[in-house]
Structure formats: structure tokens, C-alpha cells
């Protein structure tokens, strides 16, 4: 069957994530574009499919002390520690501006206890955000964060509580590559009510400054992102797609995967879409080249055009 598009008709780049239609599958990853407006002077932010906010917590957080960014080969370590103004301040000050930008607004929700997550979810449920991305995978906070994303029972508990307190918003759970059994955590989240899964958050890693003979970060460990981790993240997406399909009851589609890890150009994103992802997030690459997000979008569009692919779904080789 020929899928070559008819002349004059553009390919359909829209994707449906748990009922929310994104104009294309490219989303700015949490913590890498602030609240979107920071990059508005340099790139056309309105072209993005979605924007994830900086990780939000119920109360404002000052973030971590000491060095927060450390470059590594083809990547970077970060130890920001969820610095944010708190969910109420976000809804009041940042959200109205973010909604005006155009792309779907995805609120990244974090916390240090299931109760805190649930309270935050309740506030977001009443707000104008389009999707909640539940962050149970931040490696840079002492309490909570990644702890909930390593164990299926803990992940299920938090996801269930957030699901109950935010019944009106699509819920996407952001998974940690540091989980001993990623598929088990993912399936537990789906069972507890997740509508989509995003993976991966950063790898727990560290650096030592040989001049000072001390660990670089006050927290010792930090999160590794960037092209360095892309092949590992891709393998995780490939495997998780299969696990989700295998666990699905016949007839019911598996939840969509929003994939990320080191995407810097169209081909990188296509790899993930071929591995079964429904959409992608671009993070660290934006720091290196502010136009990376736009280039990923045009790269996907060009590929679809050149290969006669009509929809994003058709890119998948699964």
C-alpha cells in the first residue's frame, strides 16, 4: 500500500496523548525551557507540540546549594534540586503567560511525600494545565522524588493518590532509568491510573573535581542527561513498548510512551518514534543550541515528506 502523500496535502503531524491533541510530537522537557517564555526571544515557541514546566512542588523550593551544572562528554550533569516558586505561585504568575504561548501546557508535579503530591495534584486539577506529568524520578532531592520511582509499590501508591485528586487531567508518569525493574514500575503506574508514561528522567551519576579533590556536587550525586545517554534510553523505550503491549488485554490499546534522552535532531527523535514512542521530549540539546527543538520538528516533517509517511504513528517500526 502506497503511503506517499498526495501533492499539496501536508502530512499529519498531530498526536493524541490521552485525549489532548498536540500539533506535533515534540515537547520541551521539564526543567530545560523554564516556563517557555524564557526562550521566546530566540525561537518560535508556538511551534512546539507541548511544554513541560520546571518540576513543581506544593511549596516553593530554593533548590540545591553549590555547583549545579557540570559538563561531561556529550552531556551534562545537573543538580538543580527542583528550584521552583510553588504550585500556587505557578498557577497565578506563570500559567496564564504559558497558556498564551500556544503549545500544550504540561505541569511537572513533584513532591516529597504522597500527601504532598496529592495536594499539588488537586491544585493543578482545578487549573488550566492540559496534562500533569507526575515526576517520581528526580534524582536530585533528598526526600521523595526518585524514591517513588524505583519501586512498583511506591510508584503505584503515589500514582493512585494523584489520580484520585486530579480526576480531570490526563496523567503522565515520568519514570526513572534507575529503577531496577522499569517495566514493573511502569505497569504498576498504569494499573494505578496513568494515562501515559514519559521516560526517561536523568541517570544518577557523579563527578569529582580533581583540582579540589572533592565531589563536584554538594549532594555528591547528580542527574546525567544529553546525547551520551541516548542509546540506553532508546533501548529502554524499545523494551518498555514491548512490555506494555504484552501486558495489554486484547482489544485495549497500551498507554502511549513519551520518550526522551539525548534527542538533538530529527533523526534522534525518529529513532524513538520508530521504537514505539508516541511523542518525544527534547531537553539538554536546547542548552547547546536554542533552535534544537525547532530543528527536531522540521527534521521529522522532512522525513515524513521524503518517505511518504502520513501520520506520526506510521513512523513506528513496531
Amino acid at each position, binding site marked *: 500500500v502506497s503511503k506517499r502523500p498526495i501533492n499539496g496535502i501536508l502530512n499529519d503531524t498531530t498526536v493524541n496523548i490521552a485525549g489532548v491533541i498536540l500539533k506535533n510530537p515534540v515537547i520541551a522537557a521539564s526543567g530545560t525551557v523554564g516556563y517557555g517564555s*524564557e526562550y521566546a526571544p530566540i525561537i518560535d515557541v508556538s511551534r512546539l507540540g507541548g511544554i513541560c514546566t520546571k518540576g513543581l512542588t506544593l511549596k516553593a523550593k530554593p533548590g540545591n546549594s553549590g555547583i549545579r551544572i557540570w559538563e561531561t562528554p556529550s552531556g551534562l550533569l545537573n543538580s538543580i534540586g527542583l528550584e521552583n516558586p510553588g504550585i500556587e505561585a505557578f498557577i497565578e504568575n506563570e500559567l496564564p503567560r504559558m497558556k498564551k504561548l500556544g503549545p500544550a501546557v504540561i505541569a511537572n508535579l513533584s513532591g516529597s511525600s504522597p500527601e504532598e503530591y496529592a495536594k499539588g495534584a488537586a491544585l493543578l486539577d482545578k487549573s488550566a494545565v492540559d496534562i500533569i506529568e507526575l515526576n517520581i524520578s528526580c534524582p536530585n532531592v533528598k526526600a521523595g522524588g526518585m524514591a517513588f520511582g524505583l519501586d512498583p509499590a511506591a510508584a503505584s501508591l503515589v500514582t493512585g493518590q494523584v489520580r484520585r485528586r486530579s480526576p480531570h487531567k490526563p496523567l503522565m508518569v515520568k519514570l526513572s532509568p534507575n529503577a531496577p525493574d522499569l517495566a514493573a514500575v511502569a505497569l504498576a503506574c498504569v494499573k494505578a491510573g496513568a494515562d501515559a508514561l514519559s521516560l526517561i528522567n536523568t541517570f544518577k551519576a557523579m563527578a569529582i573535581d580533581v583540582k579540589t579533590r572533592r565531589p563536584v556536587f554538594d549532594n555528591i550525586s547528580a542527574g546525567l542527561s544529553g546525547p551520551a545517554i541516548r542509546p540506553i534510553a532508546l533501548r529502554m523505550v524499545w523494551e518498555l513498548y514491548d512490555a506494555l503491549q504484552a501486558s495489554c488485554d486484547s482489544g485495549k490499546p497500551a498507554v502511549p510512551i513519551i520518550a526522551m534522552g539525548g534527542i538533538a535532531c530529527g533523526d534522534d527523535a525518529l529513532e524513538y518514534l520508530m521504537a514505539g514512542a508516541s511523542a518525544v521530549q527534547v531537553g539538554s540539546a536546547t542548552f547547546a543550541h536554542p533552535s534544537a527543538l525547532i530543528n527536531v520538528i522540521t527534521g521529522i516533517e522532512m522525513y515524513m515528506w521524503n518517505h511518504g509517511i502520513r501520520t506520526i504513528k506510521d513512523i513506528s517500526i513496531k
Partner: protein
Amino acid sequence: MKILQFPETEKKPCTKSMESLYCQLIDIADITDEITRLEFEWNGPDPRAGQFFMLRPERSSFFLGRPISVESWKSQESLRFYVLLRGRGSRELIMMHPGDYVDITGPLGNSWEDFIKPEFITNKPIALVGGGVGIAPLLAFNAQFPQNKFDIYAGFKMGFFEDEDRKNFFGITDSSSGIFNGKLIVSAEEEVGNGVLEGRITDFFQPEGYFAVCACGPEPMLRVVAAKCKKANVPCFISTERRMACGVGACLGCTIATTSGNKRCCADGPIFPAEDIL
């Protein structure tokens, strides 16, 4: 991975506040053992004195750009920077050849003008105190408002290779253009001579009598300058430096603790009143 546009050959006025462009290196020259001057073509927006750009060579083994303060510029034509050899990232920059391409994003951050409005300046002069390449954003301030009275204090580890280098380094300040009407005091810890005093620049600087003091350089130097200013009750503004990833205020990687909470070095700074941060 070519993801930035080549600058268009046809020049048109830039209306954006910042731009990310692929630019060619026009000129490169070693000024001292540690400091290299780089000049790039640039037809993006004009910077203001004290602002910086993220620079990343096209052929780079590095992932992120490096934040570098602009020293001078020609509108719609070029930008000039001084780069200190500090690590592998700065080495890549200073090993480039004319004709090589660099990703340049900016101008970024705030300006000295945000604190010292030129129209409010009285007949008292302003002191510009720089350590090493820290002098670059201060020279930009001097060059932009030549009608104001600036005294320049510049301290270095090593003196200059040639008398000519020293003259070039300070640009209009050192020439007989008649534009610069202040004092120029240069000190170095080694290789003195050619009009360079021996010692630390803080040994030759007193804040009394100045309208304000602007400083940029290594932290120990800044602390001494700020302490002297506080004692003399002279306003002191400092251009700070942090490791950065985005440069536009999004990643919160360059946070500085201030008396009014966390601020972003890149977007809220890099210039802060000294009493807010030290």
C-alpha cells in the same frame, strides 16, 4: 549537526532582542600568555555594555557553549571578546582559526547601564576595576559612554608581550584619540614594565571620590574591592560568573544566593550590587 542558520549575506536591521547565529571568526590574537582576543562577524542585535554571549565552536567536542562577556562591537558587523585560557572549553575557542564558525547566542544578561544611568552621573568619575579578562565588560562600558569620566584599574597575573599589545588591549583608552580623559592604572604580578606597575590592582585602588565603582574579576579581588567601597560608602556593582547551561534563565543552573533570595546569574545578572551578593 548543523542546526543553526548561516547568517544572511544581505544585511538588514535586527529587531530581535537576542539571536542565535552561526558566525565566522574574523581575527584572533594572543594578548598575554593567558588571554586571547577573538573577533567574530555578527549581524544580530547590538549588545549593551556588561552583557555576554554563549560561544560554542562549530567543530567542538563540547556539548555546551561558554558564557563570555563582550568587550566591544561594531553595530551589525562584529563582536570582540577576550578569552582566558581556563579549561578545555576555552582552549577550543582560542585554538580556532579565522574563517572557522562558532554558534553565538545573545546578547544575554543585564548591563552596567541598568544600575548607573549615564544621565544621572554627576561630575564625579566612575572607577572600573578589572582583574584579568574581567576588564572586558568594563572596557565596553567605557567605550560606550566616552563622554563620561572613567578611571580604569586593570590587574593581571602577567604583563603584556608588547607595548603595542597593551595599547591594543585598552583600545581608545590608551590611544591619543582624546576620547578617554580618565586615569589608566595597570598592574601585574609578573612581567612588569611598559608602564605596568608591580603588584595587585587592589593595592593601587581607593574608592574615595568616585560616583560608583564597577568591578569584575576573581572573587578574592572582588571581595577586597567591595569591602573598600562599603567602608568608603561608595556604591559598588559587580559582574559575576557561574557555570551556565542555557544562558537565558531557563535551567536555573547558575543560581546566585542574594539578600533577596536566589537570582539567576545569566538572566537576572550577571551584574549585581555588591552588598546583595557578598
